[in-house]
């Protein structure tokens, strides 16, 4: 019963890393995680190059490009301000740390933005 529930609360996300390699990963919706943390937990970007500010929308190291047409939560002022100062920003840029893993994101496809030089 419990096992079933755990399995049920995972969604699938496709993440293209900075080398262009695509990974399909399971992300739990019941662990209060955000996309940046999912990337870190699967070590899809080297430690120290993502999540520098711990997820406070203060560094943009978790910037990603959203490639699927999911309905995403609106940007907070903080996220918008940070993206306006970040580099390599595109129209579909979001901060991974501001995207909470919910059922609505099942099937999401994102590409990690390059590491800032």
């Amino acid at each position, binding site marked *: 019963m419990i096992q079933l529930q755990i399995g049920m609360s995972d969604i699938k996300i496709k993440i293209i890393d900075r080398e262009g390699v695509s990974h399909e990963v399971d992300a739990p919706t019941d662990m209060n995680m955000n996309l940046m943390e999912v990337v870190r937990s699967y070590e899809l970007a*080297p*430690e*120290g*190059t993502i999540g*520098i*500010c711990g997820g*406070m929308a*203060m*560094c943009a*190291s978790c910037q990603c490009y959203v490639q699927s047409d999911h309905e995403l939560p609106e940007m907070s*002022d*903080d996220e*918008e*301000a940070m993206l*306006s*100062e970040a*580099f*390599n920003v595109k129209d579909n840029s979001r901060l991974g740390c501001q995207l909470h893993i919910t059922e609505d994101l099942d099937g999401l496809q994102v590409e990690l933005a390059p590491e*800032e*030089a």
Partner: protein
Amino acid sequence: MIKTDILIIGAGPTGLFAVFEAGLLQLKCHLIDALPQAGGQCSEIYPKKPIYDIPGFPEVLAGDLVDNLMEQIKPFQPGFTLGERAETIEKLEDGSFIVTTNKGTKHHAPVVAIAGGLGSFEPRKPLLENLEKYEDNGVAYMIKEPEIYRNKKVLIAGGGDSALDWSIFLADIAKEVTLVHRRNEFRGALDSVEKVQQLKNEGKINLITPAEVVALKGENRLEKVTVKDTSTSEETDVEVDDFIPLFGLSPKLGPISNWGLEIEKNAIKVDNTYDYQTNIPGIYAIGDVNTYPGKLKLILCGFHEATLMCQSAYQRINPDKKYVMKYTTVGGVTGFDGSKKEAPKAVVKAID
């Protein structure tokens, strides 16, 4: 040449607390940090934010934690080399080390403790062609001496506190101050935003938003900056003497990664079963900069690692002595400045 017992690279919370633990063992410390102030991430990234997991502090602002640490280590008179990055290390025949900074300052110590956190904070540079060509030739990422901008035409880019604060400050000194930001909104302390508004109204700051700098021009020295209005895509050249992009700082492990230390996951591997020593005897790594199985990048873990590191450093510096741990409550704290703190003596008195 600066001489000390333990040379600490990085003046974040871990490095600062190491000074205290070393002081209890009568060892002197000197700290090097690339930033102009102590406190590491706590001062640079989130000074006004609360931390809830420092043992004994239900809540403490990161900036206050740093102030408290500075106060706690004051009796041990640590030396500081601030605003300089540790660049090279050389091991001498007697096993001691010489660490040289990017400004050429030399430090000599028998023990080196790297408390470098996520790395030294380096300015985030905008992606512009020719940027390097104009560095120190019209382009600067930090303002060290505001006086050099007297009567100059300065263009600042950025939307955070430092861009606002420096625009305000230079408005009085420079001939012309232009502030360029990608959005109409600025993210900074309310009074700085209001002050910029006022200076703009008075014509003392030329504000261009929403816009970004897209090109740099000039024969040998920077002469013009091309600014693109992002709402109309129109480009205009602004004549300038200096361009100062202030896009914050990002940490880079940098030169330390070439010191022959074992690196894993952008961090330095250490012996966590004992004393947080690296693969080079005499060099330790403590706090966020190290890694070992189960590592957590937390302030309290850095404090613990600093404490054990100092014990090992003591043995290395005094191989013939045996140290017996004494509680501060029992032994008190005797500073190098002659100060002494100790628990008040209990009275022995009969009650009749």
